[in-house]
């Protein structure tokens, strides 16, 4: 499930909140936001590893579960996932009549 192999471009970290399962994104001030647009973006492998270290501690502290890196595109201040999978995960199901998982 962890799809962070061979990532190259800018990356962010996502996870689920442990207690309620809500999809969250790691922010620049080491908080977790339900909005993908709040994500901290790592431009290089070292920064990505640092973000994952923060996420690993949050997992150990039982704030989140199953954190992983995913590729993002950055346009100005807008951060958006590149893959269909991560886009759907960030915005919620594309099935119209259902409430989205989290605010995109």
């Amino acid at each position: 499930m962890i799809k962070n192999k061979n990532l190259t471009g800018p990356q962010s970290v996502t996870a689920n909140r442990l207690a309620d399962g809500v999809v969250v994104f790691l922010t620049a001030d080491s908080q977790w936001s339900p909005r993908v647009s709040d994500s901290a973006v790592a431009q290089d492998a070292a920064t990505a590893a640092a973000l994952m270290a923060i996420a690993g501690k949050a997992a150990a502290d039982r704030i989140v579960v199953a954190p992983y890196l995913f590729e993002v595109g950055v346009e100005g201040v807008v951060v958006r996932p590149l893959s269909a999978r991560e886009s759907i995960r960030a915005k919620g199901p594309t099935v119209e009549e259902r409430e989205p998982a989290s605010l995109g």
Partner: protein
Amino acid sequence: MYVYDGYDQTFLEERVAQFRDQVRRRLAGDLSEDEFKPLRLTNGLYLQLHAYMLRVAIPYGTLSAAQLRQLAHVARRYDKGFGHFTTRQNIQYHWMKLEQVPDALADLARVQMHGLQTSGNCIRNVTADHWAGVAADEIEDPRVYCEIVRQWSTLHPEFSFLPRKFKIAITGSPNDRAAVRVHDIGLRMHRNAEGEVGFEVMVGGGLGRTPIIARTIRDFLPKRHLLSYLEAILRVYNQLGRRDNIYKARIKILVHELGVAKMAEMVEAEWRSLKDGPLALPAEEIARIQAHFTPPVYPDSPVFTPEFDALRLSDAGFRRWLKVNVAPHRQLGYAIVTLSLKPEGGVPGDMTADQMDAVAALADRHSFGEVRVTHTQNLVLPHVRRADLPALWRGLSELGLATANIGQVTDIIACPGLDYCALANARSIPVAQRITQRFSDLARVHDIGELKIKISGCINACGHHHVGHIGILGVDKGGEEFYQITLGGSEDQNASLGAIVGPAVPNEVIVDAVQTVIETYLSLRRPQERFLDTYRRVGMAPFKERLYAAA
């Protein structure tokens, strides 16, 4: 219906208390995720793409109205007000909160429901013909044996850590509605030359990345040997099934590698040491379980009433519904009614809590308080007086559950796909929705006739695409959703695997491609030929030609 005794109920309550403590320890940090994951999976709790998902077992697809009301309650209280019926007669809740799951399980336990055997490498919830006990063509009610298998298999210590998950399905009719040939073990009840009822035993069927039709290893197994024979099969598998490679771990690979004759020989050898031991089923025990499945006492009811006749003559919609959503019942004056969870533009298998409550009320009024769940993601009211059909049709129409499309082009099986599933490569539900919108004219749908479209969002094939008359498999091509089309699959007593037509097509054209396949069929069919008949007669070539000429 089977009702838990004190032993079962106590066991279930103890399991809920145990899981409550496990969740508490997880949230308190006494259990890591690695430690907790197998514990939550044992209780049917997954972590999916967006949230926790709770899968609740509906053994052999039989529900009481009271249980359906409790499923509605769980949807409303702990989820977002809806549930999703799956291709294994279960229900899934897609938006659960870990901290609330113990309360949800406690509420489910009050109506004898749980998430056991809906995950993990164990013997999964046993499935059956959704018309069990009422079908006009049935030899014997398979649920009696499903329940016996359930009691034997639940938390079976020897079979709790199998090489891989293990699925058993049982049909009591010659016309297979339980897809037994695509299960790890399929059992078909039939009569031998002496008139005794027993089982044909098939093993090694399955879908996924290596689809295989099950092979028969025993033509006739007497009922009293059911458990010992299953145990013999499981033992051979448990010892020889591959644990080194998850993709080769199912029993179908073992059967394929050993050969069916060798597999049968090993099972028979193992069975000889088991057959007359403690697993032999005494006739009294079979009778005791059978008593739970005694059909209701059906008061006499007319086959036709003036209201029924008048509505049938005057209303084409009612006629269409009678034709495909209503089936013959073994009791004269009664009918089996399928509720379509496939409205135009809907999500296959989804049902709101309000709909569940309303169907529970209809079940109480018209079906002796009993409901069935089908592996095709619909519901069934199994005991409806034919005289009640007009009233029921109106009631179901108001609820959006009377779409006259059962077994037709828009009665699509679709897995949750990339909209919900962490494993998926592409979306399934929106493709199903678009097909139902393209084929929204019911007159046209009925002209096309029986046609089963099945859609999976990845190779794991939860949407059974391999056995769809038209199968659709979502694939990821460089981050884009593409769909591979297969033709000629079937899951019934003449089971076959679909063949790939050609290269996968992009998301934008998949519905056009399906339409092209259907139009090709319409141009080729002979009178009375269903899609599958035409395909089997003419083969792939004309479909392939039209599909890729158009592209």
